[in-house]
């Protein structure tokens, strides 16, 4: 029998369609069908300046907009050969780690609700709400943040933000304990995730899986450690890994990651305080970065730079750069080819959800149809990013 699951099905986390060939309750063949959210972002980017593409990235993995912003900005910065001030890097680390926590909260809530645990969902969304209101305070948007810019930030962080982040970070470990109390040793949860949707390390690498899916299979690979960016080499944190690569291992990896993220965020807050609650939030290289508004009003030079960047965008050198970050879902990379004009000749997005989703058939073929829902939940996909 062929069963069509989705694209309108709550457990497919958006508009994923899966064609399942069944023999009784056993999945013989599983074929994900994607593209329902395709909006041609890579094509559109060729008609926009680098800065104009930043709001697009919010709409890829809309659960972690700032990680997407960061990946694009770092790739453009690598192409330009510039590096933002250390204060900016610390703020970026702080906000992207909060993003990771909120993204994992949504994953845990929806994954649990798929398998039948209702309560976790409300707990997780309670914490996610706090991160969203932090975004709100930072940039005025709850989901489509677009806060990072090439060479810095859109504006400085508002006063009192660090105290608020500190309060959240202090409270978070207790909340993670709450989630764990509900799930980690819960017999129903164990029955639905242990030995379900396993992925061996060999297959995970061959299929290009990254992020918690790869680490759940026991491969200790985290770009924040292996190829540090934004000063991650200065932070103390551990990389949690699983052993057998089943849905439970991926659950463990992500829950431990939430704890590690609070650790990193804690250190980042201290770092930002060291550099000052207000200070430089952009590189002072006006060929690529907007000069401060006060200078634009007083200096002719600054006005010219402002006008040039707003009217044309900056002119990167002719060349190419690929830069990846460890996003909550895995390796998120941007590949820019520049022909020397303010618009990229090509922007390629290496989206982790797209690649991780490819492991679904390996996880579920030969297993029961009920496990498909647990498998999709445990991969943690966002269809906006799969389809771009």
């Amino acid at each position, binding site marked *: 029998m062929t069963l069509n699951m989705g694209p309108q099905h709550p457990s497919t986390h958006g508009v994923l369609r899966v064609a399942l060939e069944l023999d009784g309750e056993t999945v013989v063949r599983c074929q994900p069908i994607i*593209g329902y959210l395709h909006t041609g972002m890579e094509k559109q980017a060729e008609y926009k300046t680098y800065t104009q593409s930043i709001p697009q990235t919010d709409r890829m993995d809309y659960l972690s907009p700032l990680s997407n912003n960061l990946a694009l900005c770092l790739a453009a910065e690598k192409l330009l050969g510039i590096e933002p001030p250390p204060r900016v890097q610390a703020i970026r680390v702080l906000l992207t780690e909060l993003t990771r926590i909120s993204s994992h909260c949504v994953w845990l809530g929806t994954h649990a609700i798929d398998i039948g645990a209702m309560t976790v969902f409300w707990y997780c969304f309670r914490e996610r709400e706090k991160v969203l209101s932090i975004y709100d305070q930072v940039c005025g948007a709850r989901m489509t943040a677009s806060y990072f810019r090439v060479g810095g930030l859109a504006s400085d962080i508002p006063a009192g933000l660090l105290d608020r982040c500190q309060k959240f970070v202090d409270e978070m470990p207790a909340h993670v304990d709450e989630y764990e109390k509900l799930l980690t040793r819960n017999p129903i949860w164990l029955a639905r995730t242990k030995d379900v949707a396993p992925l061996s390390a060999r297959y995970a690498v*061959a299929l*290009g899986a990254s992020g918690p899916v790869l680490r759940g299979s026991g491969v200790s690979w985290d770009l924040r450690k292996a190829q540090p960016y934004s000063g991650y080499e200065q932070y103390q944190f551990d990389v949690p890994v699983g052993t057998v690569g089943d849905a439970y291992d991926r659950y463990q990896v992500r829950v431990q990651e939430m704890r590690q993220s609070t650790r990193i965020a804690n250190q980042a807050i201290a770092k930002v305080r060291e550099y000052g609650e207000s200070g430089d939030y952009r590189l002072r290289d006006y060929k690529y970065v907007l000069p401060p508004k006060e200078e634009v009003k007083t200096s002719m030079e600054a006005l010219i730079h402002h006008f040039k960047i707003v009217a044309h965008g900056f002119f990167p050198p002719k*060349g190419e*750069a690929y830069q990846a970050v460890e996003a909550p879902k895995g390796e998120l990379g941007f590949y820019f080819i520049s022909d020397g004009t303010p618009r990229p000749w090509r922007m390629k997005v*290496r989206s982790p959800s797209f690649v991780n989703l490819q492991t679904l058939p390996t996880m579920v073929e030969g297993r029961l149809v009920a496990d498909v829902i647990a498998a999709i939940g445990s991969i943690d996909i966002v269809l906006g990013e799969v389809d771009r």
Partner: protein
Amino acid sequence: MSATLAGTAPLTAERVAERLREKFPGAAVRPVTGEAMRDVGIEVSADRLVEIATFLRDEREFEFAFLSWIAGVDWLPAEPRFEVVYGLLSLAHNARLNLRVRVPEENPRLPSVVAVWPTANWHERETYDFYGIEFTGHPDLRRILLPEDWVGWPLRKDSPLGYEEVAFTHNTPGRRLPSPDLTRLKPKKVTYRAQ
């Protein structure tokens, strides 16, 4: 970003090229360098692609077991028109390498690397979907993100964005001065390429 191989010098395009020339005498191998080429890149010819890919994956010195991404590029009006870039990652040596292949406009096709890196399956389908480059030997070459009945290859440079650009003086050929007769301004017509 540090790209070092265990205990040896950093991975450079020249070194990879040298090793490949040793292993595959007669194969066209060219390191791709430039002032703002921020990654290690190497260009090879399409006919030896699968052998070279297998070598890069298995050789102890490289171990590029992880294919991170595949990107098609349309270099219109240059010849050969297309290029496919394979973003390789070596987990063992913490290094990245961009393997590049040029593809001509006439009958664009490349041997598939799905047998080398199974993850290439969806990446090659995406490249086919966007550029119309065929991957011979691919187990299931169909469109992946666009609808099955879509006509044309949207990421080719001669494919329009989806709407006609508004005609301004600066983007309309032959118009350098503002004209009061705006009805005579015609936006540049771009035609779809038939499938």
